């Protein structure tokens, strides 16, 4: 089964790397530049999991998670936070916003895949 992934990150490099890591593993990757764009993209797709950065323009990761969770159909969609920060407060904050899990940048492709499979099947 192909998993549909939405990756939200303001860094093109990071989006490229996520794509590079996930495409060969059979994921179908959609990308967005920031939270606002992410919500727009989300409108047209039914992702099995969402990966999001925290620091982004217009709408940051917390706001994005909040907005996604606010949509009834995405109350249980797995959301992984991709962050450079490993600080416990940040994880707690992400979790409070409704994040399913987190991955610390720079990420290892196999770990990312594993984490996605862990939350989305």
């Amino acid at each position, binding site marked *: 089964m192909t998993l549909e992934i939405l990756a939200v990150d*303001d*860094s*093109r*490099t*990071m*989006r*490229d*790397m996520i*794509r*590079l*890591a996930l*495409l*060969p593993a059979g994921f179908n990757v959609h*990308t*967005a*530049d920031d939270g606002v*764009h992410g919500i727009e993209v989300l409108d047209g797709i039914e992702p099995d999991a969402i990966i999001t950065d925290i*620091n*982004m*323009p217009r709408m940051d990761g917390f706001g994005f998670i909040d907005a996604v*969770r606010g949509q009834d159909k995405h*109350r*249980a*969609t*797995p*959301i992984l936070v991709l962050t*450079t920060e*490993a*600080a*416990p407060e940040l*994880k*707690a904050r992400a*979790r409070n916003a*409704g*994040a*399913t*899990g*987190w*991955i*610390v*940048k*720079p*990420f*290892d*492709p*196999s*770990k990312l895949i*594993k*984490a996605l*499979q*862990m*939350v*989305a*099947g």
Partner: protein
Amino acid sequence: MNDSNDPMAEIRASFFIECEELLEALQDGLQSLDDGDVDSETINVVFRAVHSIKGGAGAFGLEALVRFAHRFETVLDEVRSDRMTPDAEALKIFFQCADHLSDLVRVSRDDAPLPEGTTAALLALLGGLLGDDHIEEDEAEDENIEFQPATLSLDLDLGGDPLPGDLPAIQNLDEPLPSDVAGYKITFRPDNELFETGNEPFHMLRALDEMGECSVTCHLEKLPDFNALAPEQSYLSWTIELKTAVDEDEITAAFEFVEGLCELVIVKLGNQVEPSSLPQQLEETPVSLHEEPGESELNAIINPPQMVENSIANVEQETAIEITVPKDVGTPPPPAVTSGKNVTAPKQAASTTAPKSVVRVDLDRIERLVNLVGELVINQAMLSQSLESSGLSPHSDAMNGLEEFQRLTRDIQDSVMMIRAQPVKSLFQRMSRIIREASAAVGKDVRLHTDGEGTEVDKTVIERLADPLTHMIRNAVDHGLESPEERTAAGKPEQGRVNLSAAHRSGRVIIEVSDDGGGINRPKVLQIAIDKGLVPEDASLSDTEIDNLLFLPGFSTATVVSDLSGRGVGMDVVRTSIQALGGRITISSTPGEGTTFSISLPLTLAVLDGMVVQVADETLVLPLNVVIETLTLSNNDVEMVRPGAHVVRVRSGFVPLFDLGKELGYREPVRDYEGCVVLLIAHEDDSHAALIIDSIQDQRQVVIKGLDDSFYRAPGIAAATILGDGQIALILDTSDIISNAIGNTGNQPSQNLTGASA
């Protein structure tokens, strides 16, 4: 181009392009802050720029870059969270850090050695901003961001930082991996929050199932009557017996994301763990994993146990249970590059991101396109020339078609040139750095003001402008602006001001560097020129002529000038580079108020609107923009001011007259001026001259073919072109020709010719 087969190298390359954009945003943001616009979004932009550079740098193992960006980011975070005000002093450091960050990006990209010393000094400055208590914290964090070289290492952070409310007091027993299959009993009871974060027990159970032989028991006794079911409650729990060869770390890893959101006990069997000591004695209702409903609907009806901590504490006291939480993931992840290379993602996949519909194209391909269009223009010219000479009616289909062809060619050419055009902004940002460094070096407070950053110019023009502009900016700071004391004495603000502006004007770009300094000290400049024998002692020169002396090569070594009055250091070099771009540079200065250098450049180096003329059987091209008028002479119009120096009457004024054929050495000078064709030439400095030619052939666009540096650079010749008939024609540098002619004859181009340019 080899890199294009390696997606990782491609991403790396695009990372550095992204860095350029981020650095630009960083500079802009800092500039806004410096201008007093302390908007929270501006601070966020600045923070994010550094943050994103750090993130990407981490992915490529650029340790020095990560380390520096990290400290910079930490300080910016203080600003972002209102714990620090970005005052002038802090901003000065931020600007330096931004400069240094851009240096680090560059050396990382080029694999060049790192500039030592600066990093340490700036880190110390940043540390100073942070204050003592933060430094330790930050340094502790620095440990976290250390990477093994060339690995994409930072892993999934499995329990390295336990969340508050995590399993308490965990023992980490360094027990070797069981060599054979071991048994575990896992008790797992999700809290309500586990579902609120989108986690799903089914995936965890399945992950366990994949580790070995698994039997799962689901405890349903907490499940209330259907009518009493609260959909958001957690009612179920599971006991899993797992026979596996994997170690406990991996089992714990399966529950990483739900740490603190569930009750989890992992017991290694064979340690005489009494089932009775487990938190809850539940009536066991075996459910096979694959029959387990596992869907959110069912999971959402699960009951939360409230005694997590107690029960775990009990477990610990009463039994010696080994619960190990890994400090690190056991197996080192593969190196980034290797994993990238092994991935065979379709090539376009990595580059189809482009939500802004921007295509990145190799410059070589554009060069090729520009060249081809150049050929097309030449070919079009050939075709029109041969069609015109064939005597076809101007209303014939062929001629109409030709007209359309010409229009299309021109449009294509313009569009191709547009591809290479880019705003001068990046260049201007580099100049703001030069200002900062130069003003710091000479101890002056200088503010740069820029205008027209969005003005687009051909990429190659921008690149080649960097050096001359740097030179001029340094001059403006060093020599143009007075010392703070002098400024105060002159009633000016202590802070000097340098303006840098760009604008399009009639098909050219005008770049101006001006300062509000003391202006050119003309008596001093003239005296020095006389002392150096560059002008005769009795010379009476106009102000503009004196200013132009600064461009004479003799002045470049005249340190006296730079110490005393102002301009001159290396300005001849500046002028040469501007001329090499097909541009002109002029000075205007008002004593006490400042000096302005104005550069006029073609928008592109590839084509030129030219006037094709004939001189003594030679076909020559003059840039059309210097020609303001064509005249036919009569002997009455010409006056001799002294032997060999003639002027021509143009309406109410006189303009020096030069014979192009003679100046280029093609023929003897014209004796009889009756019926001579003359081009009236105006340069950016408003000087005028008249050039005698034999005939005008055409007015058309020509493709500039640069003359190779290995040729002798003939004075007055700027470049060459290929004409429609395949003939090669030289493109003239009229200003060069005229200044050479002045050298030969002493004839001076006239200034501010009245009426001639009307």
